[in-house]
């Protein structure tokens, strides 16, 4: 006998039409999972791309870049290269000077780039001086405006439109808090990528605005190709002063990207975590749609459908579901991704480099990854139960008892597997000392191990309780035995819940521990009463400087007793770019720096003599210890600095170094000050002093003047902002877990209608039936918790002690807080209670006879 194939398809369709909630749940799980992957990928890729573009737009066709320290290069170097070049009939390198910095115009962060139009045109191989095309009119008229019009700037036509600026109109640009009046004299029409955030001006204007007179940020070089280029490069190297660095134009992009890689790792890990949680939940959702039809499938098998036909149907269903879920997920992910892009770029900007993301990048592989995750997981999720059902003898599928027997076996086997996973995770951590990826791998192993162990925990707990309650309540015993006996239904859902709760406990303990550590650190470090800083994007930007006259006025303001001053810059080192904080510490400030390595008795003496202190992150990243040396490129060339100690710092994931301001000024010839910390006279409050300081700087520079309490609050805000993505992700995972639980319970409840009917017939009241169902789901919630709490603690330990340490070099003390568990407890129990509501209602109101008649 053969069942006509159309009948099978019709049965499949009917199933989904009859169970729209089931279908919707599976789709929601798939969509959410895929959306998370897409959103996180978009956010990371977009900020990366924006960053690369901003580098490329400035470099143009340059092959090499000459750069200097924080103050850039002496402009005399450029003059020497241009006027001192030997006469030659062969192609010679072309040099173009650049002065750049970041400004704020109309609340947008823009890159101000000062160029010499003639040199830029020569480098770009253009016959026209650059402003001619943009400004229009005759060459002379254009040059006249470019060179002589006060504040003349040029920008991309699109950008001007967005800023609602027309040619000839004035705009105010804010540079380190000093407002400058600019005039838009022309538009760049041929669009190059990266132009969107550029403001071009003459190099003289840029020097004056950015406080870099006498200095160049870099010199772009276009080397001729072939042997002439090789020779010219060698000659150029000989001509460079000690503090200058020559590198390939592409290399610079690469190196600066390294600075953000720690951040990128964090995000990638989050997207992997999302992928894993999503995959498991997709698995759960889809496998239920198959498991639930075990009976139907077995009947079809019994009436003659071949194994192949059934498998095809199930797999086609999975593909359709997977494709629909992935498609919706991509759409949702795109929407969410836009929001995340902002969060991500803000986090990058809180570090050093200013990235202004204007366009969302969607890498092709993101779509493939998302579709693969959606389809692949849906297929895998259906395949295993489908094989199981379709592969069995035709009538066996009808018998639950055989199925549950098998589920117990699988659970036992899974428990062993879980133990193996946990062991593997431990081994992996022990074997790898620095790899962040290995840390994440072990974290995933731990999560999988939680998932694998949970069914056994559930069964064991249920049987234990059933035994304990045997003499007290037969209904309770029955209910518990029922849970233990329905592992095929309850196991996966509880495993998913357990995993989500464990992840939640782990992540929240980590975040909270980190937050507490950060708060302690801020309290320790922020010793001054008021902090004053030049505003602007990017922590190490040289244009962030307090005007000298303003600085004088600030420290002379009545009420100010003492002050610390700092200059934050990026310096070149033999090991890449490094954030350097040059500090003049007020006597009260020394105690605020908590040393984690180095001899506390000699460290400050060495520091005053010019030794370096490294933050934990930097010491970890560069594998340096006190007593070792680090070569920094000073104005006079490379110089070895002894490392006196390592200090606690949570300012950034890439770390920074500290040096005395006196030594810095001597070696880098930079007298600017980025920020000051003011100590007030006894009895003077920050609240009354701030208006005085504001008055002292008014009209000259708009400074950030904040009390230490305000700074602390702001820092914690930044912290919370950084972890928004994390929070979003784990709530998403928890939500999906709850949905999984609901769908599992619904499926289970369908199976149990007969048992409930019998109980009802034996005298169980509707309320009693509802309570029974709720009690069962609550019990499952508790089982999930029981598995999740120890697992969550271990995960928190791995996150703080392994992953944070490996990714950022931070030592974070674990801070356990009842609240973290309360959250998880609430989540697990609320999920269970909510999930049980509908099945409980059905158990209470269902007709008794109808269900019994099925027999």
């Amino acid at each position, binding site marked *: 006998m053969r069942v006509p194939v159309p009948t099978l398809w019709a049965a499949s369709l009917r199933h989904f039409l009859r169970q729209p909630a089931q279908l919707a749940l599976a789709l929601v799980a798939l969509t959410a999972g895929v959306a998370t992957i897409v959103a996180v990928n978009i956010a990371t890729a977009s900020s990366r791309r924006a960053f690369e573009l901003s580098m490329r737009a400035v470099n143009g066709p340059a092959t090499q870049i000459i750069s200097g320290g924080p103050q850039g290069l002496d402009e005399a170097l450029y003059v020497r290269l241009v006027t001192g070049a030997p006469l030659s009939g*062969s192609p010679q390198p072309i040099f173009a000077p650049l002065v750049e910095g970041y400004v704020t115009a109309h609340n947008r962060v823009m890159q101000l780039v000062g160029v010499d139009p003639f040199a830029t045109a020569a480098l770009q191989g253009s016959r026209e001086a650059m402003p001619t095309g943009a400004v229009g009119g005759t060459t002379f008229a254009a040059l006249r405006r470019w060179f002589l019009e*006060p504040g003349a700037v040029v920008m991309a036509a699109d950008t001007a439109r967005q800023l609602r600026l027309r040619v000839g109109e004035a705009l105010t640009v804010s540079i380190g808090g000093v407002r400058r009046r600019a005039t838009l004299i022309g538009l760049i029409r041929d669009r190059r990528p990266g132009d969107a955030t550029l403001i071009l001006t003459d190099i*003289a204007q840029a*020097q*004056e605005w950015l406080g870099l*007179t006498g200095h160049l940020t870099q010199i772009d070089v276009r080397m001729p190709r072939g042997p002439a280029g090789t020779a010219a490069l060698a000659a150029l190297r000989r001509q460079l002063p000690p503090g200058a660095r020559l590198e390939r134009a592409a290399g610079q992009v690469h190196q600066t990207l390294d600075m953000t890689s720690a951040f990128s790792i964090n995000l990638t890990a989050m997207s992997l975590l999302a992928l894993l949680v999503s995959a498991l939940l997709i698995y759960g959702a889809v496998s239920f749609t198959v498991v639930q039809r075990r009976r139907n499938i077995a009947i079809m098998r019994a009436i003659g459908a071949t194994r192949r036909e059934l498998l095809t149907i199930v797999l086609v269903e999975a593909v359709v579901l997977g494709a629909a879920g992935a498609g919706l997920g991509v759409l949702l992910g795109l929407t969410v991704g836009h929001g995340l892009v902002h969060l991500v770029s803000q986090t990058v900007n809180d570090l050093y480099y200013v990235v202004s993301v204007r366009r969302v990048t969607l890498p092709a592989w993101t779509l493939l990854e998302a579709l693969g995750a959606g389809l692949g997981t849906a297929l895998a999720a259906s395949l295993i139960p489908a094989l199981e059902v379709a592969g069995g003898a035709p009538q066996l599928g009808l018998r639950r008892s055989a199925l549950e027997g098998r589920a117990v076996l699988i659970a036992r086997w899974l428990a062993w597997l879980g133990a193996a996973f946990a062991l593997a995770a431990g081994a992996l951590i022990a074997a790898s000392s620095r790899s962040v990826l290995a840390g994440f791998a072990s974290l995933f192993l731990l999560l999988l191990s939680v998932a694998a162990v949970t069914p056994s925990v559930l069964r064991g707990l249920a049987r234990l309780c059933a035994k304990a309650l045997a003499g007290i309540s037969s209904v309770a015993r029955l209910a518990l035995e029922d849970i233990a006996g329905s592992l095929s239904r309850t196991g996966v859902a509880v495993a998913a819940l357990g995993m989500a709760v464990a992840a939640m406990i782990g992540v929240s303990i980590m975040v909270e521990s980190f937050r507490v550590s950060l708060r302690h650190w801020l309290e320790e470090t922020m010793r001054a009463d008021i902090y004053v800083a030049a505003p602007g994007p990017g922590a190490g930007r040289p244009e962030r400087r307090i005007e000298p006259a303003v600085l004088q006025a600030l420290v002379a303001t009545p009420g100010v007793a003492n002050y610390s001053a700092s200059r934050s810059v990026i310096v070149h080192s033999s090991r890449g770019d490094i954030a350097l904080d040059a500090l003049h510490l007020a006597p009260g400030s020394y105690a605020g720096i908590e040393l984690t390595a180095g001899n506390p008795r000699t460290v400050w003496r060495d520091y005053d003599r010019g030794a370096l202190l490294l933050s934990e992150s930097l010491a970890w990243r560069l594998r340096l210890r006190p007593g070792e040396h680090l070569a920094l490129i000073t104005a006079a060339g490379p110089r070895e600095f002894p490392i006196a100690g390592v200090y606690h710092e949570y300012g950034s994931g890439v770390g920074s170094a500290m040096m005395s301001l006196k030594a810095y000024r001597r070696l880098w010839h930079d007298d600017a000050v980025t920020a000051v910390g003011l100590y007030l006279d006894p009895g003077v409050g920050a609240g009354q002093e701030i208006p005085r300081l504001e008055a002292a700087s008014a009209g000259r520079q708009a400074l950030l003047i904040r009390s230490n309490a305000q700074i602390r609050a702001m820092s914690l805000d930044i912290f919370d902002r950084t972890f928004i993505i994390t929070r979003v992700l784990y709530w998403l995972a928890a939500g999906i877990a709850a949905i999984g639980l609901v769908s599992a319970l619904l499926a289970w409840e369908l199976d149990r209608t007969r048992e409930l009917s019998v109980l009802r017939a034996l005298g169980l009241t509707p309320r009693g039936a509802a309570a029974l169902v709720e009690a069962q789901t609550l019990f499952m919630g508790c089982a999930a918790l029981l598995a999740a709490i120890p697992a969550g603690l271990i995960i928190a330990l791995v996150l703080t002690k392994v992953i944070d340490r490996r990714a950022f070099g931070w030592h974070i003390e674990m801070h356990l807080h009842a609240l973290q568990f309360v959250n998880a407890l609430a989540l697990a129990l609320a999920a269970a209670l909510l999930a049980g509501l509908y099945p409980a209602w059905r158990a209470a109101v269902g007709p008794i006879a109808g269900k019994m008649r099925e027999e």
Partner: protein
Amino acid sequence: MRLGALAATALVMTMTLAAHATRAQRPSFSQALRPQPLEFPRDQGPHPNFRQEWWYVTGNLDSSTGERFGFELTIFRFALAPSALPTQSATLTSHAERSAWRTRQIYLGHFAITDVARHRFRFAVRRSRGALGLAGAQADPFRVWIGNWRIGQSTALGAPSSSVAKGAVWRLQADERGYVMSLTARPLMPPVPNGEDGLSRKSGQPGDATYYYSIPRIAVRGTIVRDGQPLQVHGLAWLDREWGSGSLGPQEIGWKWFGLQLDDGSCLMFYALRDRDGAEDPYSAGTWVDAHGQAHPLTRSEVRIEDLAHWTGPSAVRYPSRWRLQVPSLGLALTVRPVLADQELMTSPRYWEGAVDVAGTRAGRPVAGRGYVELVGYAGARGGSAAYR
């Protein structure tokens, strides 16, 4: 009379428009209005209060291997505004913040080599701001430069001060693809003022004039490195110096300029201004310098120029290419012929500037010579001068 004037025409149009609005308050450029005695070394150097000026050296060279070369090395200076025009830096809080890159002086350099034996004409262009020593000019010791191209005393220390006189030694150096020129130059005669004691009027409009002098005979000697191979060369060069703030008259669209060095020791400079209707402009003029160095101004009516042939270059611009030049008052009848047809500089504006051979008679006796001819204003709007307009 040189290229800069054409650019200046366009410049003046925009400048005057701008100037009309605020003429009363704005400072203005100095004007070439009346004759002024030349003074050295002052007038070797720049005159930054005039809108434009140039140092224009052309010359014919022979190599020790018997090859023939021509060269043009010119450095122009343009002021974007009169000096007192306030710039942004005036609004800055302290003088220390003023960038050294601020300037209103722009320099332009043209270098061309005519390699007769290889039938090559090559040119290169440089532009730079006149700041930080990237480009500039100074009177004493005399030096004008743009990047590493130079005219003037290269090693200033210990050199005699008034170096424009006979016996002074300059260096001329420039490079381009395939050619490096490095010459020492010794003026063989003192500067010769052109026009009315050095005031050269270009139109009836006061101010449409320049101060203009030439050193028509300068002995040059040195090397040309061609494709890496050094060649010893020697020959005769010509320096033209002009500065002013005006331009051509509204009817004038271009000119032919002749700078001819005859083997009897005399020299002839003549520029024939061309009007929009094709006629020769009455303000065309020149100077005859006899073998004793005595200068005699030439007016338009004294000189007859006839185009004998034409050449159309790759840019489709048609230039006259051979000339008969007659000065009956001097008994002079010459044929002037380019050593290569293609000596067109595809710059903006486009022009032709080339080495020429001269043959003819003077007072019945045969005379020969060499020189340079400049043809400007033939390219029309299409020829690139649009960029300056």
